[in-house]
């Protein structure tokens, strides 16, 4: 059963890529990509309970299905599905006619992000991450404007440079292991864990730091986050959602698994303290840039930096609580950030601008989608009753109980700052008065501009509902089966950071 599901998860997007390149009819390619996304999502839903039975290895040990990878697949597949639905509406409103190129790249991006968490060989995992960069670069600069090329250039240079540090770290670690078990051994996560107790501590620590910085660049942790706001703000909205909700999680898997290895190597508290400090720094940087942000999608991008910081804090605190909180947060963030980028895409469509200052009285211009977006904004700041609140709260509890309690306090303060700063932008957009009195006179041409373009299509609204409803459910009810799942992952990671 599991091999069939894996086949669906990997072959459906691959088939979509080939189909899109072969048959270039625009209506066909969007449906083909959607069909691939739906089948991937269904396959992941079926796979999720099966994965609990333990790690399965396939293809000579190159693919692994364990609870952690299945959980990450769930968030990736949800975002892929939502973004595929949204893309149909969003990309139609853009004048570009070579949609087949977009959907081929989009399905390819889906494929690489889905493949990443499944990789059991550390080297191949690294390559999967590198491939996600290469594919998504062309999605970021799909609109071929000057800014989007700039964003794509920064993205590929910074991320390739950063991720080569991760490769260096992996090779260091392999070297450390080869001093013990001989020149040749499999470069699997399990094997790294197996040799860990005997690896020299200097090598272990150095390779952990290199890998953390390398994959941290891809995850978008400060101070390696500089590519993230550019890439996320310049791509088309469905691509931004995929980058933020799917790609970052895929890269986070590498960090989580390497924390596990460094735990096995008994490096003491140092690795976790580094992860926690970088997480807190990400929150701090995000708080600064969120409060003074002028671009709507850059606001969302910095919010991704914030949430990746929160996740890093969760995994860094460790223990059953920290892991559970971080994983719950991962799913919630994926859904919520998709919702936010969809809303931003709709607002940009309606107001013809990326600037927050140009958006006024959002509710009167886009009532339904505006309401959903506002709910999403409340949710993304971690307010109840939405899904991010229980996750963040659990992470806080884990942190306060552990040895890095200072970071939990910093997190609490910065989350409040971000709450105020983020929602202040929404207050101004929804209920604020226009900055200049001149706006009243400009009101008439504004209206005509609003009437000129076609209204938002249903394709742009449905995914927002589909993201918000589970988010609300997750906020009100933390299913017991999730808790079993998280404790299985926590045991599997055997994290011993905090109680």
């Amino acid at each position: 059963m599991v091999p069939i599901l894996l086949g669906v998860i990997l072959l459906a997007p691959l088939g979509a890529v080939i189909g899109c390149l072969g048959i270039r009819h625009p209506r066909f390619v969007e449906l083909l990509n959607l069909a691939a996304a739906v089948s991937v999502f269904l396959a992941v839903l079926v796979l999720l309970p099966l994965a609990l039975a333990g790690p399965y290895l396939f293809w000579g040990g190159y693919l692994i299905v364990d609870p952690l990878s299945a959980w990450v697949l769930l968030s990736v597949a949800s975002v892929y599905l939502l973004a595929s639905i949204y893309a149909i509406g969003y990309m139609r409103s853009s004048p570009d006619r070579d949609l087949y190129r977009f959907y081929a790249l989009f399905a390819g991006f889906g494929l690489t992000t889905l493949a990443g968490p499944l990789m059991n060989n550390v080297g191949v995992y690294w390559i999967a991450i590198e491939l996600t960069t290469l594919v998504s670069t062309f999605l970021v600069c799909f609109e071929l404007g000057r800014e989007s090329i700039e964003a794509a250039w920064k993205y590929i240079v910074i991320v390739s440079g950063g991720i080569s540090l991760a490769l260096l770290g992996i090779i260091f670690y392999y070297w450390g292991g080869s001093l013990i078990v001989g020149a040749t051994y499999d470069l699997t996560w399990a094997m790294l864990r197996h040799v860990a107790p005997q690896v020299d501590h200097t090598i272990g620590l150095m390779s952990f730091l290199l890998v953390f910085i390398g994959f941290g660049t891809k995850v978008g942790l400060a101070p390696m986050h500089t590519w993230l706001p550019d890439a996320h703000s310049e791509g088309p909205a469905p691509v931004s959602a995929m980058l933020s909700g799917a790609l970052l999680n895929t890269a986070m898997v590498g960090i989580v698994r390497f924390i596990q290895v460094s735990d096995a190597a008994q490096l003491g508290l140092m690795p976790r303290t580094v992860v926690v400090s970088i997480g807190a720094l990400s929150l701090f940087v995000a708080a600064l840039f969120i409060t003074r942000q002028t671009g709507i999608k850059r606001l969302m991008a910095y919010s991704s930096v914030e949430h990746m910081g929160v996740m890093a804090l969760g995994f860094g605190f460790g223990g059953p609580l920290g892991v559970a909180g971080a994983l719950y947060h991962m799913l919630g963030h994926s859904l919520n950030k998709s919702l936010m980028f969809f809303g931003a895409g709709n607002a940009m469509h309606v107001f013809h601008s990326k600037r927050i200052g140009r958006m006024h009285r959002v509710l009167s211009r886009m009532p339904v989608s505006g309401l959903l977006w506002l709910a999403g904004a409340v949710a993304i700041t971690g307010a109840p009753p939405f899904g991010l609140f229980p996750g963040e709260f659990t992470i806080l509890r884990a942190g306060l109980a552990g040895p890095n309690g200072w970071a939990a306090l910093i997190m609490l303060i910065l989350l409040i700052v971000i709450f105020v700063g983020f929602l202040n932008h929404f207050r101004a957009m929804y209920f604020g008065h226009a900055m200049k009195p001149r706006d009243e006179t400009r009101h008439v041409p504004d209206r005509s501009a609003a009437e000129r373009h076609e209204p938002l299509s249903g394709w742009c609204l449905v995914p927002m509902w589909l993201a918000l409803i589970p988010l609300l459910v997750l906020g009100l009810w933390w299913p017991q089966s999730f808790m079993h799942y998280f404790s299985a992952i926590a045991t599997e990671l055997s994290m011993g950071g905090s109680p």
Partner: protein
Amino acid sequence: MFAAQLPPLVASLFSLVAIASLLLSFVMLGSRWLTDYLVAFAAQSWLIACLSAAIGYYGHFPELYVIAALTALFRGVVLPYLILGIIKRLDVDREMHERLSPSACLVVGALLVLFAFLISSHLGQALGLSGTVAVLALTVMLSMKLIGFLMLTVRNEALSQILALLVLENGIFLGSQILVPGMPLLIELVILFDLLVVVACFGVLVRFLLAQTGTSDASRLRRLVG
């Protein structure tokens, strides 16, 4: 550990090759001409290919011959050829406004090598490997890494940045040949292939860059801030 048990002659041969590749990255640092970078990179790749073959021979790792052939083919011929194509199309032959003059770069590069040596000798002492070729390999690997990052920061031309990224990878490749010659073949193959894809992507991007901004000077890309 393979590198610690080599006969002295072989060890010095490896050291020679490693140091020569390090010197070639200094050639890149000390020049402003793109073709110089390219030739230095190609020569470096050929040296690494020779190193792989030599390690395969002395360490009895037959699969390293495959790696050596592919390294020479991909990094020594195909990649430089692709990049030469980009250079010709771009119609730029030198770095115009570098942030740090080549001579200053050489000084900073020397300091970086010193730093790399400090780290690797510390590591070597911790592992009881001081004085072996392993320490030298570590030094060269870290130095090339640091020099690559230095080039990325101070050079503005799009092509210099691509070549800087390739130097980063060359450093890792060189170090890994000496330190972990037994690394699974598949990994190295895929990394080689991956490089090809990277350069192809960069080629396309550079073309977009040129079409949009009329220049391949990456320092002009500074609209997105904050």
